[in-house]
C-alpha cells in the first residue's frame, strides 16, 4: 500500500480551478520532486496533502489517514507529515531550542529533558549546535531554514513535504540547505518537494512530477524525465528555467 495516495483531486480558489484532477501515489522511502511554473498548482497540491488546503473533490490518504474525510484528525496527520515552508516560518518569539521543543512538549507530550535532548540532536544534525539559544532574527535565511527542517524532523514524521524551501534564499545560502536535504534523503525519508532546483531534482529525487495548469503532465524517473522530456510543455519549461 502506498504511503501517500492522491486520487483525482480538484481544488478551486473562487472561480479559478487550481487543481483539475490530480492523481499520484508515493511509496515509502520515495523522493519525489514536483516541478512546474508558478501557478501550475504544485504548492497547492502539496498543501492539500497535509490538509492546509481543502479539496473540493477527490481523495487523499496519507499513512492510513484519510485527509479528505470529514472530521479527519488533521493534527495527528500533521505529526506524521511534516512540512517546511518557503518562508521558514520559525516562531520569532522562541529560541531555536524552543522552536524545536514546542510541538514535542505540547503535541507529543514528551518530558522536558527528552525533548531538549532530541532538540539538541536534530539541531546538531543540521549543523547549528552553536545556535541552540539564538533567536530566529539572529540567524541568516539559510540557518533559519535549517532550523525549520530540524523542527520538522524532530517530530519524527513518516513523510516530509518541502514547499520551495530554497526559493526565498540568497543564492549563496541555497547550498547549505540542499546539503541538509540530501542528508535527510540519504536516511530513507519519504519526501515530496516542490522545487526549482533542477540539478537537485535530477541528482537526489527518484521521481519527477511535472505540473502544468493544474494537471500532471509527466511523471517518471527523475534523470530520464529531466534529460529526455516527453511532452512539449516540459521541454518548454526546462528550456526556460535552464536558460
Amino acid at each position, binding site marked *: 500500500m502506498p504511503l501517500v495516495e492522491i486520487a483525482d483531486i480538484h481544488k478551486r480558489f473562487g472561480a479559478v480551478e487550481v487543481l483539475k484532477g490530480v492523481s499520484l501515489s508515493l511509496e515509502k522511502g520515495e523522493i519525489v520532486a514536483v516541478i512546474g511554473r508558478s501557478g501550475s498548482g504544485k504548492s497547492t497540491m502539496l498543501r492539500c496533502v497535509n490538509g492546509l488546503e481543502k479539496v473540493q473533490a477527490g481523495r487523499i490518504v496519507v499513512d492510513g489517514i484519510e485527509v479528505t474525510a470529514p472530521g479527519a484528525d488533521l493534527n495527528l*496527520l*500533521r505529526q506524521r507529515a511534516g512540512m517546511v*515552508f518557503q518562508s521558514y*516560518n520559525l516562531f520569532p*518569539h522562541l529560541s531555536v531550542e524552543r522552536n524545536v521543543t514546542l*510541538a514535542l512538549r505540547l503535541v507529543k507530550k514528551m518530558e522536558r529533558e527528552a525533548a531538549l535532548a532530541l532538540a539538541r540532536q536534530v539541531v546538531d544534525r543540521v549543523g547549528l549546535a552553536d545556535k541552540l539559544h539564538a533567536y530566529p532574527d539572529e540567524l541568516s535565511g539559510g540557518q533559519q531554514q535549517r532550523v525549520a527542517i530540524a523542527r520538522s524532523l524532530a*517530530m519524527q514524521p513518516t513523510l516530509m513535504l518541502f514547499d520551495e524551501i530554497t526559493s526565498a534564499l540568497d543564492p549563496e545560502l541555497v547550498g547549505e540547505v540542499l546539503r541538509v536535504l540530501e542528508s535527510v534523503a540519504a536516511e530513507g525519508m519519504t519526501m515530496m518537494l516542490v522545487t526549482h532546483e533542477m540539478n537537485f531534482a535530477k541528482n537526489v529525487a527518484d521521481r519527477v512530477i511535472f505540473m502544468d495548469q493544474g494537471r500532471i503532465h509527466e511523471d517518471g524517473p527523475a534523470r530520464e524525465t529531466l534529460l529526455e522530456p516527453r511532452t512539449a510543455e516540459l521541454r518548454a519549461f526546462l528550456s526556460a528555467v535552464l536558460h
Partner: protein
Amino acid sequence: MIRELSSGDIVYLVVAARWTVLLALAAMAGGGALGLVIAVCRVVSFRPLNWLAIGYVNLIQGTPLLGQLFVFFFGLPLFGIQVDPWVAAALALSLHAAAFFGEIWRGSLQSVSARQWEAAAALGLPYHQRLTHVVLPQAIRIAIPPTVGFLMQLVKDTSLTALIGFVELTRASQIISAATFAPLPVYGTAAVIYFVICFSLSRLSLRLERRLHAAR
C-alpha cells in the same frame, strides 16, 4: 467667600486624584474584559458576530464620550434606573474603552502573519495551542504600546466625568479654583498630577516591552 490657596488644597487635589485613578482602573478592567469579547467577535468566522462587533465599535468611536456619559447619567433614570455619578461614569468609560481595546487587540492579533498559524498547524498543534503558544505571545508584544497609549488617554478622559458631577481630579480643581480664585496654580497642580500618572504608565509600558522583548 474667597480664601487663600493653602497646602491643604493641594492635599485635597491629590486625594481627589484617587478617584481619577480608581475610575481609570474600573474602566480598564471593565473595558478590558468587554474589549476582549469584542476582539474575539471581530475575528471569529461568524458574520453576525463580526457585524455586531463592528456596529458597536462604530457607534462608540463615532460619538463623543461626553454624550455617552450623559446617556448613562441622564438617560437611565428615564427608565426608572437611578445611577449615581460613579456608576454612570464607570459604566460609560468601560463601554467606551471596550470599543478601543477591541480594535487595538483585533489589530494586534491580525498583524501576526497567517504563516505563523500555518507553521503551528503543520506541527500538529491544535487550534487553541496555536493561539496560546504561537500567536498570542506575538500579538501581546505588538499590543502593548497602543494599549498603554489608550490607557493614558483614558486617565485624561476621566476628567469629562466632572460634567456629571463626579468629584475626581478635575471637578475637585473646579471646586477649589472657585473657592480660592487661583485657577492657574490649581489647574497647574492638577495637570502635574495627570502627568505623573501618565508618565508612570509610559514607564511601565517601556519596562513591559523590554521584558517581553528579552524573552521574545
